[in-house]
């Protein structure tokens, strides 16, 4: 699997990260390109150990879920997806295309910013107001307004934060699983299944990669049944492969 350097830490939300991964590779936004950057995306959010607000973590994980769906579909072309899932994929593509336009606009504005500013008069024109007026300033009103302002000054507040749980990257998981399958020859998915939902998806994808790469063969008796993996070349009789 090709290695890509991912810049860490400066992304403003999942769309920003995803878009830059796609643009780094000079790809168009579509299902294929999204599938191809899934691993980098996961690597990035798993290596991100800095504290980010709770709401943002959820955003990163939601986008991860859609990406994993796309990735599963590219590995298993026969995988049926529900209309909602298809909708989620379409929505992610649309959001990325739209965000790409916004970034284009932002770049244009940045280039234009402050280069040829329009100017207003530096000083307002002097119009003599004929009658002397004390401008309604009274010391008491002035002090009152400041007392009120001072009591309203915000105190320091803390944002609700959560640490992004480091996720296991696909490459790492493949290595780990390859090792385990090879050492135990035969393995049930239920034996290695993680308790973390996202990690299970990564594990599953890693196993699919291993199957695709010819390292292991997989067998499942019926849908939703446990999956049995074994090393290719193990001398047990196999059927239907």
């Amino acid at each position: 699997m090709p290695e890509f350097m991912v810049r860490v830490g400066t992304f403003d939300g999942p769309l920003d990260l995803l878009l830059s991964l796609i643009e780094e590779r000079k790809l168009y936004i579509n299902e294929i390109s999204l599938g191809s950057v899934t691993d980098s995306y996961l690597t990035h959010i798993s290596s991100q150990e800095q504290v980010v607000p709770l709401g943002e973590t959820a955003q990163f994980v939601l986008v991860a879920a859609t990406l994993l769906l796309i990735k599963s579909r590219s590995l298993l072309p026969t995988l049926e997806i529900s209309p909602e899932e298809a909708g989620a994929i379409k929505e992610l593509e649309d959001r990325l295309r739209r965000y790409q336009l916004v970034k284009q606009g932002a770049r244009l504005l940045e280039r234009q910013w402050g280069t040829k500013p329009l100017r207003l008069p530096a000083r307002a024109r002097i119009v003599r107001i004929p009658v002397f007026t004390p401008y309604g300033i009274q010391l008491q009103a002035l002090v009152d307004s400041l007392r009120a302002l001072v009591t309203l000054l915000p105190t320091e507040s803390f944002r609700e934060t959560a640490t992004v749980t480091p996720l296991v990257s696909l490459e790492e998981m493949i290595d780990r699983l390859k090792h385990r399958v090879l050492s135990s020859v035969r393995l049930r998915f239920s034996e290695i299944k993680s308790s973390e939902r996202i990690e299970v998806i990564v594990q599953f994808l890693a196993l699919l990669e291993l199957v695709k790469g010819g390292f292991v063969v997989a067998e499942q008796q019926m849908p939703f049944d446990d999956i049995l993996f074994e090393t290719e070349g193990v001398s047990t009789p196999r059927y239907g492969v």
Partner: protein
Amino acid sequence: MTELMNQSELSKHIEALLFATGEPVQLARLAEILSVRIEEVQASLSLLSSHLNQGIILVHNGTQVSLATPPDTAETVAKLLGDPEDREVGQAGLEVLAILLYQGPTSRSTIDYIRGVNSTSSIKTLLLRGLIERVPESGGREMVYRPTIELMYHLGTQEPEQLPDFTVLRDKLAAFSNRQESVTPTSL
């Protein structure tokens, strides 16, 4: 006096008013002072815009209007007055501005949805700097943000329509916003 003003007279008085205050004025305020309808103010502004000499231009954002110096004199003016205070806007702020300029007035939830991230603090900073304002959506109950005239000064443009690639980007973005209205945003 004002009751008998023709359009040319109106345009003259508007020019004098804008010149004398030296800052943006609401169209409604001009109409009030001159005792005419907003439509007449608008017509007189078009007239004024076409009659202005080259060293002063009319800047407007739909509800406010002001006079200012044209972009190609910026360098000369800076020689006399120095460069204006012009702090940079960060990437997040520029994205919010791009949405408001190229797509039009937008609610905070839509801005968040488009950027995929919470934009509260960027919006707050832009409001503080007077680059955007918060107004009720026309004909709706929702609050939306939109560019101020102050923003036009920094960008050196008389109106958003004169920004680079304006129509191309606006039309492409419009295609998405029409589609989005019919979809419930599931992920934000």
